[in-house]
């Protein structure tokens, strides 16, 4: 055994070389693991997640004009828009809006069809529910959005 090899063996050079690789990769810029429930991952701006029915920020009234275009555009027929004619303003007004998330495939055709930007797929992605009826969202749920439990560590 040559002198160099003995030196490497005694002073564990190979071990330290290996550890150097390990520690080099501990640099924060190489960390890709997301601490998910504690830290919510950032999804893209255009992410197609939970649907939301937007309200007018000025007066809190719904933007939806009950035109039914989203229900017609939906491939899965999961949107039901209920409306009634207001005799005073002679306009159709939204009464109910149900959205069956359990059948939704988040294709985005409903938000494309919406002429007033009332229906929108948002960045919320935590949509689990304990029951099947819990996946059918009504108008209130759609306006408020999901409220998943926040975990802190």
């Amino acid at each position, binding site marked *: 055994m040559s002198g160099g090899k003995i030196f490497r063996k005694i002073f564990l050079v190979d071990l330290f070389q290996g550890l150097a690789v390990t520690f080099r990769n501990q640099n924060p810029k190489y960390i890709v693991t997301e601490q998910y429930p504690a830290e919510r991952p950032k999804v893209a701006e255009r992410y197609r997640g939970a649907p939301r029915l937007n309200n007018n920020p000025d007066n809190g009234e719904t933007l939806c*004009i009950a035109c039914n*275009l989203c229900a*017609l555009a939906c491939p899965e027929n999961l949107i039901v828009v209920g409306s009634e004619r207001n005799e005073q303003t002679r306009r159709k007004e939204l009464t109910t809006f149900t959205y069956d998330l359990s059948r939704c495939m988040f294709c985005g055709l409903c938000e494309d069809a919406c002429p007033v930007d009332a229906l929108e797929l948002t960045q919320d992605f935590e949509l689990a529910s304990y029951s099947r009826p819990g996946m059918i969202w009504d108008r209130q749920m759609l306006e408020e959005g999901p409220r998943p439990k926040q975990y802190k560590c």
Partner: protein
Amino acid sequence: MADEQKPGGSEAPLPAGGEAAGQPAKPSPPKPAAAPPKPPATMAATPWESDLARELKERFGGQIGETSTYLGQNFIVAKPEAAVPILEYLKLEADFDYLVDITAVDWPKRPERFDLVYIVYSFPRNERVRIKTQIPDGYKPETAVGVHLTANWLEREVFDMFGIEFAGHPDMRRILMPEEWQGYPLRKDYSIIQQDQRWVRENLGIESGQ
């Protein structure tokens, strides 16, 4: 070819007019649809003039009904019994050595209920040809497995979905549906939520899959 117009044309009363480009930002009342020109009831195909079409007509004579082209895509309408000889001729004499697809289209109101469509491609000529035949329900067309081995699974799928049995096929079984399944899903009289209730009960132990 479309000898009946589906009533579905007016099923979805979407407001027409305007292009789909961009997002219409303001709430506009649904405009009355600008009446679109009524599409012709048949495919506006034009005759296909080429050496190959002439050769085929010479060789097969009355067995070839028409050689046409639509949207730059050539097709032959032939008698059912001529389909496999044409495939063979195209393969051996005209280098159409690649059978792309076999499929069928169901036209329930026509006496010859099914369109059986063969699509072939030629590597040397870089050309595609469709061969269409019209067959009645229950007719057993000859298999093309002897000409192209690809036909094996493709014909099995046509059998599975449409119930067209191919005579002389080495292995005429269902391929995608379970083997004991009753009914042929892609026929027009098979509704989208229809299923073989007996099969579902016996094999899945539930009353209905819906």
